[in-house]
């Protein structure tokens, strides 16, 4: 793939690799005896592997292609394959975590395999590894198509993609070694955080520069969502990770905030990670791939603008609903609660807009599992935002907080919405990018759909039951005013649901494995589609068979 870079670009890539290798060497030397040293070794190895690929191409002749006639899709392709890899790893970890909760012996007595270490491998693996790579890859695809411009640069998209994955690997390996900042979804330590800032700034600049080249007067709404995702995640990440390293040769650092300010900063981050990582970016996918796949324009473009700004400006204030009944001032809690309830409006506007787009094309939804993935994702998006707004009400939260109800809500959103929209998008974009007629096997797509749906429903229902039972047992008093149930009693009551959740998760994981296999076979074996001209063609040649006036 590096052969498509020009000689000058290959040299820049090589220089970046050398700088990275130096950084890795310094980290490894300075951090000897500390997890930071192992991370230095990882950076060094990653730089070495990349150098190998660049060097292999460095003597090759200059690329002969005309860059003005097609899009640059190599990084997109790589990103999608990497996303599927992380899906299998991250969800595999999820099933393991779920199984440990049901059968604690599955820890096998090692330190690295304890619940507290593999749980963040699951959460980061699925959110950043799977979700993040899918977002980066699809954003490259969408920004080029919607602006009818090629990516602005050929090295920076690779830098962003590979740099982001280096961050993910450093994060995951750090958890297994016990490295953590103890901030949920922001666990990696200071040097990984600094690295992510660099990667993210390059990503933002790349996006803006590509948009600046656009040949469409209006910036299509999907781009707004992707840009909000990039920009706001940068702000959140920088502020929440402000910290002072205990020493420059070790991983440990101390947060710049203390007490309730620290908690508020963390959940301002945490909730907006949900909003801008797990929602805004994936809404970008929805607004592009769903109309495209249904071959119908979005039902109301105006509504999509309204809901965009609604989501952006309401979400920012909602984080305090994670801190009900804490030392946080009451009015801040109420503020978060109010904004959470208002959030229902733009959220349902998006979900409704998606479903209304399909209105009149239900036969396509019935026949096409790919479109069905997207439709069900929109339904789960509506469901989980309704549930979230409800749980944000303080009185409801007093029951749901700390219980498995929250975990059920999380996965209604994460599996039902985030994962399903991603799989739908992957299935619609893979044949296009690799120039195949269709996916290798539509039957496997169909299987995946039903496995994923069954897995999600089992998971979410199990957690609703488990969580509400748990919450009610915690607040049941005897006549003499003491607690009626011990903690162990709740565990016994929850055990069957934990087993059910592990089974549901296994179904979902099986679906993800089928997806990875199907994509692999599509790349390898599906019949190629031979367009009359080299693909993509110019617009004159691609006149629709039926004139547009009909």
């Amino acid at each position: 793939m590096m052969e498509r870079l020009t000689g000058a670009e290959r040299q820049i890539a090589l220089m970046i690799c050398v700088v990275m290798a130096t950084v890795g060497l310094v980290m490894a030397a300075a951090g000897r005896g500390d997890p930071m040293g192992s991370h230095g070794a990882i950076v060094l190895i990653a730089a070495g592997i990349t150098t190998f690929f660049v060097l292999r191409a460095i003597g090759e002749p200059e690329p002969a292609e005309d860059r003005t006639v097609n899009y640059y899709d190599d990084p997109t392709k790589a990103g999608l394959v990497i996303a599927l890899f992380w899906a299998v790893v991250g969800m595999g970890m999820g099933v393991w975590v779920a199984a440990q909760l049901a059968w604690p012996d599955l820890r096998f007595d090692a330190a690295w395999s304890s619940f507290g270490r593999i749980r963040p491998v699951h959460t980061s693996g699925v959110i950043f590894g799977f979700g993040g790579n899918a977002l980066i890859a699809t954003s490259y695809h969408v920004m080029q198509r919607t602006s009818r411009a090629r990516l602005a640069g050929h090295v920076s998209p690779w830098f962003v993609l590979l740099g982001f994955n280096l961050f993910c690997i450093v994060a995951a390996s750090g958890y297994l070694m016990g490295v953590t900042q103890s901030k949920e979804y922001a666990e990696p330590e200071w040097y990984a955080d600094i690295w992510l800032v660099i990667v993210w700034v390059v990503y933002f600049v790349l996006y803006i520069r590509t948009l600046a080249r656009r040949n469409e007067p209006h910036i299509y709404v999907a781009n707004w969502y992707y840009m909000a995702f990039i920009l706001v995640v940068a702000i959140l990440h920088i502020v929440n990770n402000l910290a002072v390293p205990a020493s420059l040769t070790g991983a440990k650092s101390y947060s710049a905030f203390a007490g309730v300010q620290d908690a508020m900063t963390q959940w301002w981050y945490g909730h907006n990670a949900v909003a801008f990582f797990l929602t805004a970016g994936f809404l970008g996918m929805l607004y592009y791939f769903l109309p495209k796949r249904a071959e119908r324009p979005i039902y109301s473009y105006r509504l999509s603008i309204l809901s965009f700004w609604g989501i952006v400006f309401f979400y920012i204030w909602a984080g305090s609903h994670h801190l009900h009944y804490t030392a946080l001032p009451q009015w801040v809690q109420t503020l978060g609660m109010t904004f959470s309830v208002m959030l229902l409006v733009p959220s349902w506007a998006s979900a409704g807009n998606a479903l209304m787009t399909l209105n009149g094309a239900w036969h396509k939804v019935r026949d096409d599992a790919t479109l069905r993935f997207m439709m069900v994702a929109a339904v789960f998006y509506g469901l989980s935002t309704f549930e979230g707004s409800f749980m944000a009400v303080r009185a409801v939260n007093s029951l749901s907080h700390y219980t498995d109800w929250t975990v059920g809500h999380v996965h209604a959103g994460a599996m039902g919405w985030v994962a399903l929209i991603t799989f739908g998008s992957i299935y619609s974009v893979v044949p296009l990018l690799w120039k195949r007629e269709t996916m290798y096997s539509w039957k496997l797509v169909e299987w995946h759909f039903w496995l994923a749906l069954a897995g999600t429903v089992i998971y979410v229902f199990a957690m609703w039951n488990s969580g509400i039972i748990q919450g009610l047992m915690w607040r049941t008093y005897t006549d003499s005013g003491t607690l009626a149930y011990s903690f162990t009693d709740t565990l016994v009551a929850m055990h069957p649901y934990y087993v059910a959740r592990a089974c549901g998760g296994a179904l979902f994981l099986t679906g993800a494995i089928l997806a990875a296999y199907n994509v692999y076979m599509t790349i390898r074996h599906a019949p190629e589609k031979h367009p009359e001209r080299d693909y993509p063609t110019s617009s004159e040649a691609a006149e629709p068979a039926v004139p547009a006036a009909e």
Partner: protein
Amino acid sequence: MDLTHDLTSLIAKSFGLFYLIALSVGITVYAYWPSLGKRFDKAANSILDDEDGPCR
């Protein structure tokens, strides 16, 4: 001047309210501005046939 709790809550309760109202009104007006309808329709349809490659 210190950024006290009282001051931040005052700002949130006064300025915050009005700026959000102004924002909502502004966005609604923009989204429903009649003469922009054509542009939005064109944008909504533009993605349906976009594989014809970049021009630059």
